């Protein structure tokens, strides 16, 4: 196999060059390398639009075991620029699987590298912070990859949302098959009469939409650049600011729209990037974390109850709590590093979380936030 398998080369901006086995498409990619510590759910991670511009390293050694199925998509295609892993499964072994990870990535033009020391890379990212990187599965020389990694401008200040948001507003679900049955056991509380929720698509994960739908909402998804007035014209009972990729500082139009929504007093739920946009709209500042939070085991404490939620997280930027105005009440903090994980406004039905209550992948501890949101809508 080592002689026969195509080779891949990964170069990091600090000069590290690793060789491994190629997977996915024959292609080159330049990206910001982040690691994700989830032990399940690579399909959801790879299709999460928040990863646009990034290459994902999986710390779990065996990836591809359960293949790719028709239901666990968070968007229609892989969103990552590249995949870095230790051991690609030789087979697909799960009752729902339809194709292999390798074939699926190849089909969508995404390259990957396997058989590299992923723990070594993770420790490097932990110690040095997120690094720019370049990968080739088609023989581009290491020196050239290094040059590309070093000259690539990176994600800071850039608008990555443009690349992933919907071009046109649409109603969810357009296609019932996209609605995963596994995520939703029966018995979720239904809101009556059906409230209308508008979701700003900054790179929204489908599971946010599924959660709203499962609670009886009518869901309209609008493009990221939709001005507040246009969204309000849809007469929403509540608005969700979705997750999405990149630096919130690169999205002045979205901050502008968020301000408009705040002023209108419509109930608002911010998730991840949506939470950061809310922070900026309130006059706060966002900053970059050293290596981000990416995984499904992040403990978050709800300061009002003391309860710890184990949450799914995926973000490189965070809202600096010290820069928020007094009307913003801090509701959640990370137990790991004390960073801001959630807030609410005392004078308006507005709250937001940095983590992913919709999970997918990850623990379901924070599902209740969707109920709480729909309660404010009613």
């Amino acid at each position, binding site marked *: *196999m*080592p*002689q026969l398998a195509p080779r891949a080369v990964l170069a990091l901006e600090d000069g590290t060059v690793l060789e491994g086995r190629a997977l996915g498409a024959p292609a080159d990619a330049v990206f910001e390398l982040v*690691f994700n*510590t*989830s*032990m*399940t*759910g690579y*399909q*959801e991670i790879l299709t999460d639009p928040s990863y646009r511009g990034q290459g994902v390293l999986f*710390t*779990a*050694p*065996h990836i591809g*075991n*359960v293949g790719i*199925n028709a*239901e*666990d998509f968070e968007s229609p295609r892989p969103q990552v620029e590249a995949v870095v892993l*230790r*051991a690609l*499964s*030789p*087979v697909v*072994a*799960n*009752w*729902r699987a339809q194709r292999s990870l390798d074939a699926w990535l190849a089909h969508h033009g995404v390259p990957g590298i396997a058989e*590299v*020391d*992923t*723990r*070594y890379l*993770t*420790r490097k990212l*932990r110690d040095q912070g997120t690094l720019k990187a370049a990968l080739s599965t088609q023989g581009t020389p290491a020196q050239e990859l290094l040059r590309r990694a070093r000259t690539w401008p990176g994600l800071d200040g850039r608008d990555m949302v443009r690349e992933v948001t919907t071009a046109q507003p649409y109603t969810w679900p357009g296609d019932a098959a996209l609605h*995963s049955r*596994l*995520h939703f*056991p029966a018995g979720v509380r239904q809101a009556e009469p059906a409230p209308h929720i508008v979701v700003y698509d900054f790179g929204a994960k489908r599971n946010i939409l599924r959660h709203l739908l499962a609670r009886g909402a009518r869901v309209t998804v609008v493009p990221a650049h939709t001005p507040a007035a246009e969204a309000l014209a849809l007469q929403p009972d509540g608005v969700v600011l979705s997750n999405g990729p990149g630096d919130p500082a690169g999205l002045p139009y979205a901050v502008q729209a968020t301000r408009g929504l705040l002023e209108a007093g419509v109930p608002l739920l911010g998730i991840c990037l949506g939470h950061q946009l809310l922070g900026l709209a309130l006059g706060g500042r966002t900053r970059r974390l050293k290596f981000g939070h990416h*995984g*499904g*085991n*992040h*403990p978050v*404490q709800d300061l009002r109850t*003391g*309860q*710890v939620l*184990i949450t799914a997280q995926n973000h490189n930027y965070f809202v600096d709590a010290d820069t928020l105005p007094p009307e913003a009440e801090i509701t959640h903090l990370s*137990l*790991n590093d004390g960073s801001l994980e959630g807030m609410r406004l005392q004078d308006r039905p507005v709250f937001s979380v940095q983590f992913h209550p919709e*999970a*997918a*992948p*990850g*623990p*379901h*501890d924070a599902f209740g936030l969707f109920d709480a949101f729909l309660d404010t809508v009613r």
Partner: protein
Amino acid sequence: MPKRDDIHTILIPGSGPITIGQAAEFDYSGTQAIKALKAVGYRIVLVNSNPATIMTDPDLADATYIEPLTPEVLEAIIAQERPDALLPTVGGQTGLNLALALSERGVLERYGVRLIGANLAAIRAAEDRQRFRETLVQAGLPVPKGGSVASVEEARALAADIGFPLLVRASFALGGTGASWVHRPEALDEAVRHALGASPIGRAWLEESVLGWKEYELEVMRDGADNFVVVCSIENLDPMGVHTGDSITVAPAMTLTDPEYQRLRDLARAVMSAVGVETGGANVQFAVDPRTGRTVVIEMNPRVSRSSALASKATGFPIAKIAALVAIGFTLDEIVNDITGETRAAFEPSLDYVVVKIPRWAFEKFPGADPTLGPQMKSVGEVMALGVTFPQALLKAVQSLEIGVDALDGSGPNRAPVPVPTSEELAVPHPERLFRAYRALQVGHTPEAVAAATGYAPWFVAQMHQVAALEARLRAVGSTTPEDELTTLLRQAKRTGFADTHLARLWPWLAPEAPVHIRAERVRALRHRLGIRPTYRRVDTCAAEFEAQTPYLYSAYEHADEARPTDRPKVLILGSGPNRIGQGIEFDYCCCQAAFALSDLGYESIMLNCNPETVSTDYDTADRLYFEPLTLEHVLEVVEKERPQGVIVQFGGQTPLNLAAGLEQAGVPILGTPPEAIRLAEDRERFAALLERLGIPQPEHGIAHTLDEARQIAARLGYPVLVRPSFVLGGRAMAIVGEPAALDAVVREALEAAPGQPVLLDQFLDDAYEVEVDALADGQRVVIGAIMQHIEEAGVHSGDSACVLPPYKISAYHLEIIREYTTRLGLALGVRGLLNIQFAIKDDIVYVLEVNPRASRTVPYVSKATGLNLARIATQLMAGRTLDELGVTEEPRVQGFFVKEAVLPFAKLVGSPAVLGPEMRSTGEVMGWDEHFGHAFAKAQIAAGMPLPTEGAVLLSVNDFDKGAAAKIARDLARLGFRLYATPGTAAYLRRAGLEVTPVNKVSQGSPHVVDAIREGRVQLVINTPLGAQAHSDGARIRAAAWEHRVPLITTLSAAAAAVAAIRALREKSFRYRSLQQHHR
């Protein structure tokens, strides 16, 4: 919430003796709990009958009672110590059952003892299958179809509804006792009767078959504020149908999508809530239909379990410690994660490696027992291995087993691959099924066919198939293979987990003439020349997201190394590997003591072991922990990485001793007694010469390399003779041969047990007293730790014999001779550390049977009884201190009698002859103390689960040699008011002796016969002495029936005499209970 301050003293019951299904993992959990609770200021009272444990070390708890784990004893201790709380969740099933019993008897209420860590309702709901099921059904959680029955008739009706196959289990029984699969209606009645008999509450449970479904387990933790985390997910390689303790298991789960995994997580949480487990650790087992994903909950344990020990070691999350802390009020977010030092226990570990556990069985010791695996657990120990990938972890686990196998085809340096299996064989769960499956792949069966036959998930089979493909490519390598290709392949082989010894067999060209172990050295040298060395990775709970403060390491062949050895003076301790019969927790106790002693002396202690059940593999026992197979390859690599001042090999039983020669050859310094002295003591010829030179008597003996030689020697010695192989522990393949006709088979087996080694034959000293000594020596002086007398006569393996300290029937004259011989031998062998000698006394002559210049099985027992911590002192001696410097110059004296009794697994291994002999068969031991021998013996019997009756009837069936002595015992029992039953021959003899006795038919004479009498409960005690080595079928049936119906069984007359003394004592006055701390004050 901070800790509760309404509690000051906490009572913790341990789990008692090591048995199949309840083993060393509860030493680990109890030890962690005690340490954690003491650290936050509570006073701890511990009760455990097992002296071999670390937890009963008197330094740990504030009051340590080595007493029987019965409600009566606990009540007495509660009255004495007045604890405010009882923590029943770290002592296995025993702990929970005691909590239930104490509560039902009103003891807890009477003394104001609060139950912490679990409430009664939750224990009942989880432990009673019927209630558990009802609870789940009410909460809307998915369960298999099934129900509880109290009679065969009820079972038939229920089975008609469920359909076949179905599972029958005994309610409230440990380790699956009494459980079986029933495939046809005709087999139902017998299975139900068996289960009803094994159930302490007389109920059986019937359940829908989920055979062949995927099996998963979640280890979870909850605190009083309803914070909930999953510590670890475990996927079984063996599908449903094999007890999880007998399954090869993998962590984390490998073949689940996220929605499926999260569903298990949601269900586990819902099960905890439904059952009412408010705080603590628990495990929840699931079955998942691989065709549809249908998931059902199988069971939950509202306590720390064997799987939690595994999960703790697999993740670095100390479940027992955290469970203890949440039990007294802490919440998970208040507890710091020791490994990162910065994050909290309120999180879920993420693994960037794969963990494989493989059980270790001991069927070779139980001829006749069925090795087919099923719902009743049969393994006696387990190994765990960590690897970056599943194949690497799997291969390392196989190499850890110490069964002579280093490859997936079941081959090893001296072992051929297992035969190619038929597909019928692949379908049978069996200790060798893993090897058989690989073998099938090796010879070209498709992965699909192997997966279908075994029920292994296709993913695991595909991984094994890749290993087989690589092996085929490795086999094709030759002396002409270019070096770069060789390098690539060798690196890939090591990354996959191939052992050097295996590569040595695949690559004969490396040294065509050399034996395999020399070729393995060549492989190693080649590896090193090509720069292919292991890198060590840290177990950090978080997949490297945070920096690990704890050096808990495993080997890999990756890019970067994280060992970061220090430059402190350091010592490497080699552990004892998987628990097995003959080598159990006692040796882990010794290794832990060594680590503690070294830390006290200012050394950095480094532990190397592969047993997840133990205290030694806790990350805070030694300063550094390498979780590695105990093979020369892995040990040498760690030695080269760490460069210790020395290695300790005398504490881990036979395992490290087997490595000593290889380590010496590699120039590794061995601390303490030189391995040469250990070898001398094991080399019968040289040892005999030494005894002769020292003027110490020994039984007549001879050494045979062939069957012919053995026949000649036996003829010279005269029968009976004792036959045994050299260099094995626990009396493997050892037997007493009474007549020439029986010799051949025994010698053949002994030659096979230790290939290439001679067989030893000794004159057998009939009816001799056996005495055992543990001593310390520093090269200048020998100090005796204890002299113990075996209660069974010579011929019963010392590990299976009850034993009393101090000796109760040995004259001062003989004791002096024993002391003198011990000193002579200790000095002559140059012992630095521990020394164990077995003596026999016959016709006024003291013989030396065996000398072991290393830690023995009795070290913890002696240490607990005398207060002299032998293993710790021995470590100090090895580090260069002298006995004088340590002030250890006198043999300690004890007050009263400490009796050790062995605990045997016959009830679990149906079909194996229930008789004691020179081959050790016990899995564990208990200790009983009292002022008088009779009381102490009675306590030991109670602790061993075979309480002696004080009234009723005794059945005697003894061989002709024993009839005279049996008459005396029968008379004593009759005077104590017992009715006598006897088989016809024995009855006739007793009648002639003037005793009133009721004869009972032998089984061969037809009903009503002895087995009926036992089954019907007419007999409260059975005394049956078997005749010689030949299995007397009637006697075997009597003994099997006694085991099955839990009637105390005594198989030697000396034990019977001790039992009579005990019964008399029991009737005269009550027991006294005293903590070790009071003993040693």
